[in-house]
């Protein structure tokens, strides 16, 4: 599949009807998703025929893109039932129900989720999925809302536990140095594939400008041999 073709298809992926501020539900655009999954396959061979996990899948933009690029099996996890409902509609519309499973779950241990303390990984849940996938793709919450501090790192850590080969993830560029070090401690090398301007449109009341550009890195983490 050509990149333009993929982006064209992904333009039909339905997105959040009422985005939730607390969950930092910024949609992944077709433009961005097509480039991430196209690069993952054409430059690294990480998608076609692979088992893929999508963490914080939202409405399933990366999930659909992965399936379109030939993933053999995709598991997509999100905490929000409304987002999963739309993801299911997208899966049906794109006729990829034979490839994709949706699961509603939280990557944070229940006693730490939603409170203002430090978030802790839901080890039991993540443990069952440890090293079961080839590749992880994710556009995690950036951890900028109160109570969400560190959630970006927690998502990335979960992805590194589940993926045997590679992880593709989007993070605020300001966290780059920290994440590169973290990745090392998890046994992964970290490479910045692209520096992006994340155009976050005015979806929430606290956004005063029409849209805000955030500097974001597309990271590829690869397991050290």
């Amino acid at each position, binding site marked *: 599949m050509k990149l333009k073709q993929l982006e064209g298809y992904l333009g039909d992926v339905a997105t959040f009807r009422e985005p939730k501020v607390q969950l930092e539900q910024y949609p992944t655009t077709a433009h961005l998703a097509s480039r991430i999954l196209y690069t993952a396959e054409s430059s690294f061979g990480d998608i076609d025929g692979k*088992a893929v996990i999508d963490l914080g899948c939202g409405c399933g933009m990366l999930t659909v893109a992965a399936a379109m690029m030939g993933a053999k099996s995709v598991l997509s996890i999100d905490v929000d039932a409304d987002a999963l409902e739309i993801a299911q509609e997208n899966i049906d519309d794109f006729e990829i129900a034979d490839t994709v499973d949706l699961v509603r779950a939280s990557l944070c241990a229940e006693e730490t989720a939603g409170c203002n303390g430090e978030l802790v990984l839901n080890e*039991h849940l993540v443990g069952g999925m440890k090293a079961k996938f080839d590749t992880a793709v994710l556009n995690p919450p950036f951890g900028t809302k109160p109570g969400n501090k560190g959630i970006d790192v927690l998502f990335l850590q979960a992805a590194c536990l589940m993926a045997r080969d590679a992880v593709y993830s989007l993070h605020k560029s300001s966290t780059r140095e920290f994440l590169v070090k973290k990745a090392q401690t998890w046994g992964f090398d970290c490479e910045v594939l692209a520096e992006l301007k994340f155009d976050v449109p005015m979806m929430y009341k606290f956004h005063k400008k029409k849209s805000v550009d955030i500097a974001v890195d597309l990271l590829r983490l690869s397991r050290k041999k």
Partner: protein
Amino acid sequence: MRIITHNMLKCHVKNCTDPNKQFPLRFKDVQLEQVEAERNDEFLVRMLPRLDWPALLKTSKELGMGLPESIPENPGEDEEFLQAVHTFIMETHVKEGSMVCDGCAHEYKISNGIPNMLLAEHEI
């Protein structure tokens, strides 16, 4: 949800820690649907070591589906074996029902094919 995914789902209730009971989750009142999928032998062979075979076998018996007791020596060349595994883990979808933990009896509901692994609504 397909069985390949069920094979990774463990009970994560805080004090439920007996590994022999928290996994696999037992299906209860489930509606199944077979959805045809293209068989990819290379993929299946690669997934075999990642499956928990005893758990898979237990689940297959529960659902009354056939699965060989063990993985043959050369699974990649065993047509009958590959087809049985493919049918069970890739084509069998659980649409409705629930999954129950044998350790703590917690029940995880499955609705419209999506299992809810949240322990309570307040978790989010």
